[in-house]
């Protein structure tokens, strides 16, 4: 029997849910609003919410001052490259952990995750030196590698949990039907795990897109992505809130659009296996 919900109760629940949603979204909303203000209005006290002189001036100045397209392209290459490379390494790893586990599989999973418990700055110095030696400083290749390695434990963990949900008998059936290991992964495992793989891809792409520590520390001009583009507006010349907001809005817009269109996939993937 469905639980009866009173109309008033339902209205209150809806209002509370919307309030929490807006509260979480507020910083992004404020950034977007600020990007349309003049510098004076941006720092005015008390702050103005909607009643200000809407202007596109900041966007014009930002576009004029820096090459947005180049930063955007770098972001796409770095986030996309590290995600695809990560998935290619993680699928076989997660397959072996889910379907042919050894006594130490659980330990390896935890051990992998433990690398995420170390503050990134702790390994900055050795990685910086390595990058100098290998000539990877300020290169997209270098960032693809570092971000892939940083996110690999999460990708493996996510795929591992999705793969665990796939009954082993189906893979055995494929083996009986004459599928080689490669065919088993391509024709059976991957199509069955598509929702999981898709949400892993998306989440990892978002993480890599927003990653600021490594991208700021290991790039200068050539390989700098959108995070560096934003950072360049909190400059020594002083803080320009409206221009900073315009830059931020331009940096988050692509990922916001991507997230909006894939939200169904993302939600179903992230709650995969939670209910059965």
């Amino acid at each position, binding site marked *: 029997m469905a639980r009866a919900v009173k109309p008033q109760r339902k209205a209150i629940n809806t209002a509370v849910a919307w309030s929490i949603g807006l509260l979480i979204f507020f910083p992004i909303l404020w950034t977007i609003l600020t990007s349309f203000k003049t510098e004076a209005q941006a720092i005015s006290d008390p702050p103005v919410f909607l009643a200000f002189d809407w202007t596109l001036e900041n966007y014009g100045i930002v576009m004029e001052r820096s090459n947005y397209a180049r930063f955007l392209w770098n972001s796409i290459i770095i986030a996309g490259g590290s995600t695809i490379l990560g998935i290619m390494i993680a699928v076989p790893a997660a397959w072996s952990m889910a379907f042919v586990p050894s006594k130490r599989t659980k330990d390896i999973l935890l051990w992998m995750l433990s690398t995420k418990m170390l503050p990134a700055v702790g390994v900055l110095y050795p990685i910086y030196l390595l990058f100098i030696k290998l000539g990877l400083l300020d290169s997209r290749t270098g960032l693809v590698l570092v971000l892939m390695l940083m996110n690999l434990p999460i990708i493996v963990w996510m795929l591992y949990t999705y793969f665990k949900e796939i009954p082993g008998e189906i893979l055995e059936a494929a083996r009986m*039907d004459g599928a080689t290991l490669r065919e088993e992964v391509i024709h059976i495992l991957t199509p069955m795990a598509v929702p999981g793989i898709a949400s892993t891809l998306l989440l990892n792409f978002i993480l890599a897109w927003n990653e600021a520590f490594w991208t700021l520390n290991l790039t200068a001009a050539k390989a700098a992505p959108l995070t560096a583009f934003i950072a360049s507006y909190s400059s020594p010349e002083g803080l320009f809130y409206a221009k900073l907001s315009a830059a931020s809005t331009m940096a988050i817009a692509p990922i916001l659009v991507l997230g909006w269109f894939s939200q169904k996939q993302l939600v179903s993937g992230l709650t995969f296996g939670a209910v059965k």
Partner: protein
Amino acid sequence: MGQITLKQVTKSFGDLQVIPPLDLEINDGEFVVFVGPSGCGKSTLLRLIAGLEDVTSGEISIDGQIATDVPPAKRGLAMVFQSYALYPHMSVRKNIAFPLRMAKTSPEEQERKVTEAARVLNLTDYLDRKPGQLSGGQRQRVAIGRAIVREPAAFLFDEPLSNLDAALRVNMRLEISELHQTLDTTMIYVTHDQVEAMTMADKIVVLQAGVIEQVGSPLELYRNPANKFVAGFIGSPKMNFLDGSIAAEHNAATIGVRPEHISVSREGGTWRGKVGVSEHLGSDTFFHITIDGMNEPLTVRESGEVDLRRGDEVWLTPSASHLHRFDAKGLVIR
């Protein structure tokens, strides 16, 4: 062809030996059923034959070729799993064609074989559906279809009917038996249900704790069980066992007599007893009768409806020619 020979095959998981050295001969075209309680190693034995598990030692040969180290797909066997193990993202047509696709069969040949299998299994109208849109029985037939198109040397069935309801199970039992007669191919069938074993098998292999207790035709096992375990496992309702002084009269540690081999009378007989619970099936009636000197009631089967009530005093007489005698180790005394 589908002759399978197991020689001194063993299987251990870590330090735990689940199959001690075991020999078995399965002849071409035979319907062999592995039966035993859960955890007796019957599924493991099937998976060893399939190649899904590696033997720890010993040798498996298929049609005279040693197959011990041959991968599952190359053994020429097809398997039907308990969960059906259909590919959920593929249509019925693609599910059935999958082994052919893996074998690089031409598309025309694939289409021909899939159509033929669908016709035999009454699946023609469902070829474009996904497994999720089928009933349990239909899913089972798709799994069988996927096995048939490979034209295997032998079919392996791992408890294929245990997820179906009782009525459907009886139907599928007949369908599989019929399929065996049509195809005339070796089939190895694992079940814990002795009724399935009795009704389908040419040869039953009774297993307990990885050990083969007895191999024989259904009626051989029913008439001449080699030990107490087989005697108790084969036949429904199960055989009655009596020990103590009653068994001693027959120079045995235990005697066994099936419910259908005991006659009931109000006037007189061998053992005196009191009627307890009775189960009326219409065609048969099962009485649970406690006899003097025994704690456990005996089950007695009478044809049709017999008017006996709880508490009635009756006499039971076992049929002397159907009495099974066992020694202290549970082995039959012939």
